């Protein structure tokens, strides 16, 4: 399989783009909610779809909840915000000030979808604005499935490459981690790297 060659500086640039994006997302969430939320991306990495499947299994042993935003344009793929379902449910509980131990019903899934929409829009907006890329987007979708079936139930394939950005959510007393994953074919990843090279000169 063809693979992406990326330098440390380029990876740092992507991490910075993600941090700018999640920062915007946090600002929007803070303007809407009574709880204070801060988001940051401690690291990013590019891995194969197959390795990502293993990461997902290690990240969430049972059910996983994701918000998916598919995009087409100069670069095509899908962006996802993923959490183990229990963590996603705790996040929603804190945001809407509900008691814990509630099912991820349609209302709570809608709320999680909105949080994912805000964070992913921040990241995609940051990538498209700073790198001068334009995309056409689909309406964000909520996906909930067992981690074993995750690749099968989302619009991903093992031959995709994944730009994985670990995202830390700190909300008052709750400190949780989710993943932002950008799924792209290798050609799209290489195009992203090329664009970074053109923009930043490395």
């Amino acid at each position, binding site marked *: 399989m063809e693979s992406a060659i990326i330098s440390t500086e380029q990876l740092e640039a992507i991490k910075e783009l993600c941090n700018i994006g999640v920062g915007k997302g946090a*600002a*929007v969430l803070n*303007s*809407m*909610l009574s709880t204070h939320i801060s988001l940051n991306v401690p690291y990013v990495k590019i891995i194969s779809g197959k390795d990502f499947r293993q990461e997902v299994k290690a990240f969430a042993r049972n059910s996983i909840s994701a918000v998916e*935003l598919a*995009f087409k344009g100069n670069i095509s793929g899908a962006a996802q915000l993923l959490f183990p379902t229990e963590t996603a449910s705790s996040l*929603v509980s804190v*945001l*809407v000030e509900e008691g814990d131990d*509630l*099912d991820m*019903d*349609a*209302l*709570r899934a*809608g*709320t999680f*979808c*909105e949080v994912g*929409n*805000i964070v*992913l*829009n921040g990241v*995609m*907006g940051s990538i*498209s604005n700073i790198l001068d890329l*334009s*995309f*056409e*987007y*689909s*309406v*964000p979708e909520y996906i909930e499935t067992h981690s074993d079936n995750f690749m099968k139930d989302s619009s991903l394939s093992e031959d995709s490459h994944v730009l994985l950005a670990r995202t830390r959510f700190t909300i008052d007393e709750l400190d949780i981690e989710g993943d932002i994953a950008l799924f792209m074919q290798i050609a799209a990843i290489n195009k992203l790297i090329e664009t970074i090279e053109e923009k930043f000169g490395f």
Partner: protein
Amino acid sequence: MSSSKMDISSFSDKLNVLNYVPVGICIFDINYTVLFWNKCLAHWTRLNSSDIVGKNLSAKFPSIDSPGFHERIQYIFTGGPPVLFSSQLHSSIIPCVLSDGSSMIQKTVVSAIPSEERDSEYFALMAIENATELSRKISEYRMLRNKAMEEVNLRKKIEDELRESNNALLEHQETILKQERLKVLLEMAGATAHELNQPLMTLLGTIELIHMTQDVPETILGHFNNIEKSARRIADIVSKIQKIRQYQTKQYLHDVSIIDLTESSS
């Protein structure tokens, strides 16, 4: 013709099909000027298309000035990603009153649609779903679930309390039984000691008199010594019986137990 008027006439012809969908649809430009207002939204808001098209959405519905709304949809006008407003975080973007007088709960998605006339210009298409019934059903389900959980917890609590009361009752019964047993034992011991002491004193006194008697043959004296030893043992036993304060038993035969005099009197 101004660009806004051009857009309005262009949309009203092309988007007529959206008048037949059960979703509220509104299209507005970057200045929040309404370009299209479908029949469903007109029905929900009781505001005809002619009353709002060409007017400012924010002026008609100040509720859209809620925190984060403008900030989130600003990128729509440059072709940014769709923006979701969930029913839990924003109960309604365009307030609508239902026939029963309650407020409609909405789920809203705002997407960018490109202008056909001008390149890199986008309009906002707001699609509003009536989520009232779903929200009510989920609220009802949650209430039922919480009630069922409360009942389960209450039942568990009652069962625990019942178990504790039962254990306390059994302990109390056991204590009463022990007290009764001890009472009977003490009465029996008192009576036994009292009844045995009289003949025992006579026995020991008589042996004392025999010892004081002259010319009693040695063999007979030996027998009397044995009788005296046994009488003194009986006296010790009677003394123990008098000192009984608790009920302690020991194994006698395989399925029979007897009072342990040493333990009971210590």
